[in-house]
């Protein structure tokens, strides 16, 4: 599903973000990317949804090398990948329903489909009673659930979560990762970049440690 072959990425000459990364993530896997802040976890995720292009190596997503992808193909790649962030990236002026519907609207989905899918996915993440609420009226955990719903509404094959629990208290964080695990059991490949030790230790799963841009360990069901 995702394959990195000897990938090197640098944002400036003296700041390498990834160095010789080799990584293979199978379909329907649940993977934690761990490591210290600035170690390269987010950069690795950004390579997958082609927000950055590495200077060396290859990144295969859905069997296609995204480093060679033409700019016009990128939106179609991203339609198969859901991304969630630590800072939620929600539109403050839109309701919960509006934020989730937005992901379908910008793809030109018909109104009928939007009206059917949005309530469904919001119910699935436990927000069916908050459809008309604005993001500011929600707790951090609820905002992250909206973000997950927005990523899920397009039924992605891959879900990338970049520090999804970074702004949340431990209890809420557990709830969010449980939700991500549920998504994974439905068949979606989930990659979670985190430095939350408790979460990784609690949800034993494949754990890839990245430090200074290099993969230094890769263990099945390994802890932090």
């Amino acid at each position, binding site marked *: 599903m995702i394959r990195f072959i000897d990938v090197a990425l640098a944002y*400036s000459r003296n700041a390498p973000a990834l160095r010789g990364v080799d990584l293979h993530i199978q379909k329907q896997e649940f993977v934690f990317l761990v490591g210290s802040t600035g170690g390269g976890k987010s950069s690795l995720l950004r390579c997958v949804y082609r927000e950055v292009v590495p200077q060396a190596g290859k990144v295969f997503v859905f069997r296609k090398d995204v480093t060679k992808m033409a700019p016009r193909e990128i939106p179609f790649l991203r339609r198969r990948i859901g991304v969630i962030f630590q800072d939620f*990236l929600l539109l403050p002026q839109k309701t919960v329903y509006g934020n989730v519907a937005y992901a379908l609207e910008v793809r*030109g989905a018909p109104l009928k489909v939007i009206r059917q899918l949005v309530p469904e996915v919001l119910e699935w993440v436990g927000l069916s009673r908050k459809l008309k609420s604005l993001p500011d009226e929600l707790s951090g955990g609820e905002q992250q659930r909206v973000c997950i719903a927005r990523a899920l509404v397009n039924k992605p094959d891959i879900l990338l979560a970049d520090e999804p629990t970074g702004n949340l208290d431990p209890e809420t964080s557990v709830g969010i990762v449980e939700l991500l695990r549920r998504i994974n059991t439905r068949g979606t490949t989930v990659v979670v970049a985190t430095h939350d030790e408790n979460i990784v230790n609690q949800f034993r799963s494949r754990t890839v440690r990245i430090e200074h841009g290099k993969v230094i360990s890769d263990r099945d069901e390994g802890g932090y």
Partner: protein
Amino acid sequence: MVTSFSGIRFFCKEFAENLRRSPFVAVTHGLQVVISLMVLGFFVILMAFIGSFLFSLRNMVEVYAFLQTDLPAEKYAQIEEAIRQLPNVKELQYISREDALKRFSESYHIEVEDILEYNPLPPTYILRPVDVSKTEELAAQLEKLDGMWQVRYGRKEVASLMKVLLGVQVVFALTMLLLLSAAWSSVNNIIRMSVYSRRREIRIMQLVGATNSFIRWPFLLEGAFFGILGALVALLLIYLIGEAVYTLLQNLKIFLPTIVDKQAVFTLLALGLVVIGFLIGVVSSYTTANRFLGHELRRIEVMRRMEAEL
């Protein structure tokens, strides 16, 4: 390309929401377009008046061709035929010796024949050239005709008129360019502000897989809307101010020569400003949005360059 009804509905909804959300930006945007196009409109009107006046002077250029007096009748017919064959002749008027004498007497109140006992005035052709800049050439062609006595025209005046006309055209072109670039840059700044204030939406759109053309559409719609609305408001203001100035000048008994058709100038101006407003709005929205969307591609280019340097 937007092909679906849902896409169009989305653009309209987003556009209305943006107007409601940031009325200050919308008003500033609208005012910028109105002011830029109004200045442009007034300048075009002023130039239309000055240009029409100068071009009307062109029609006053005349060439006098005096013929010899002792030619046989058939020779005069040949000369007239030869003049008619010349390429730069717009109008031709024949003044016989008798008419010339009559005109002279009327102008100077002198009976020449009573004094000289004969008519000394030659038969004359008065010509208006098609192209005033080639008057000298026409005069030279006339002088070469057999039976021609003398050719006269306001050589210095024509040369001065041509210089002034050229100068006016150059000043008009340069000022138009300046005003258009001023209008372009002020509209551009506002669009840039609008794009920047919506960078969060743009980022979300990119992440969920919207194509660049889809992301661009609401900005194009906004640009077109403000361009056309700005042009219409500018036209209304130009009309009201123009009428007020015209009435004021009439009340002050200041003579206003009718050298241009006011209605025609305003109609052309209306069409021109709406087209310019639309084009400035759409093109500047397109380029600004593209520049913003191109950030990602530029970042990739920078990284590739770095790779080559390493």
